[in-house]
């Protein structure tokens, strides 16, 4: 389909004052935006703060979004501009702090930022990846094919139905069942 009905509906709700709908948009696009910012800013600890700024800016400007483009295109443009502005302002700024020679070795730089890439988060992310791939390996072939054709190859339900030679209803059922099985493995990690 590719029309992003979900995004359009959520944006409409946010524009009408439903803040909870914006929470869903953040959850949907947080990792994509962080990855995008990471292409501009090498310091991973700063990426999440810049991504947060980008989301806040997009929330404040969401009434100017008229649906001429896809929401994620608009959001990515804001994120890219936020990252570029951050780099430009950092280049203009002097450090603005003094560091004692004795403390320099332990000084963490200008980021009084939360350290996101801490060992705990790194471990959690590795566990999530391992769990998902392990769960996929254990899936029956029909479910595995359906979920990989959808998620990796990005095929539509209609295309998957042609490839797998089955009705569309079966495709949607297989994709859901595959997600459900993987989710059962994933859930304990994220609770």
């Amino acid at each position, binding site marked *: *389909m*590719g*029309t*992003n*009905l*979900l995004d359009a*509906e*959520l944006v409409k*709700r*946010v*524009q*009408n*004052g439903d*803040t*909870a709908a*914006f*929470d*869903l948009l*953040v*959850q*949907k696009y*947080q*990792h*994509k935006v962080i*990855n995008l910012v990471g292409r501009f800013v090498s310091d*991973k600890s700063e*990426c*999440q703060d810049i991504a947060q700024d980008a*989301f*806040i800016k997009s*929330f*404040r400007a*969401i*009434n100017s979004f008229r649906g001429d483009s896809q929401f994620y295109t608009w959001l990515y443009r804001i994120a890219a501009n936020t990252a570029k502005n951050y780099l430009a302002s950092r280049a203009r700024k002097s450090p603005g702090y003094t560091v004692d020679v004795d403390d320099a070795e332990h000084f963490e730089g200008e980021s009084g930022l939360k350290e*996101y*890439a*801490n060992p705990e*988060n*790194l471990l*959690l*992310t590795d566990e*999530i*990846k391992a769990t*998902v791939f392990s769960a996929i390996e254990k899936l029956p072939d029909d479910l595995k094919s359906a*979920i*990989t054709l*959808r*998620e*990796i190859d990005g095929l539509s*339900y209609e295309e998957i139905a042609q490839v797998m030679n089955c009705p569309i209803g079966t495709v*949607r*059922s297989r*994709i*859901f069942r595959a*997600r*459900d099985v*993987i*989710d059962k493995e*994933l*859930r304990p990690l994220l609770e």
Partner: protein
Amino acid sequence: MKELDEKLSLLLDDYADEDIDAVLDEVTADVNLQYRMRRYQMIGEVIRHELPEAIDTDFHHEVMTKIRDQAQSSATTATESAAPLAPTPLTARTWFRPFAGVAVAASVALVTIAMWQPLQQDTDPLDGELANADQQKIQQLGQQLQGSAVQASSRVQSGGMRWKLKNESPVLQQKLNAYLVNHTEYSNSMQGLIPQARVAGFDAQQ
């Protein structure tokens, strides 16, 4: 519940049916459904190798907390120069559009009326002068006729284009006809009509 989970799966793939509103209402009201939706989303990100090297499960909480905090601080300071943090509903920003349209239409009408009045004023004085000139001529003619046997003031009426004589007098009628031929171009009742046509018209009415 399984049915709702399957609808979530469809929603993520943009295969939502007509009850997308009902599903979203349930999702926004139920944290567990939100978590499930996020895990479904995450499964796809892992498969596509789009997951960052370190994820922060509180990321969206922090974003929403900052948004609420900034909304509260901007509400308390209430500075007009500051941009409003919370997006105002579209209806609030567009309510004035019909009024703006009416205001523009009213302005155009006002300008039209203002232009029309000077135009009328341009034409009316001339007509008035010509009418006064006619009246003066008539009065002069009346005075000239006072010497004759007929009382002009009681016999001559200036209504319309015809001279009406109570008692027919060829001499007086001849004078009046001559007067009309000589002064017909000053008449204000049929502007633009050539004098010959006016004379012909007068003769036709005799």
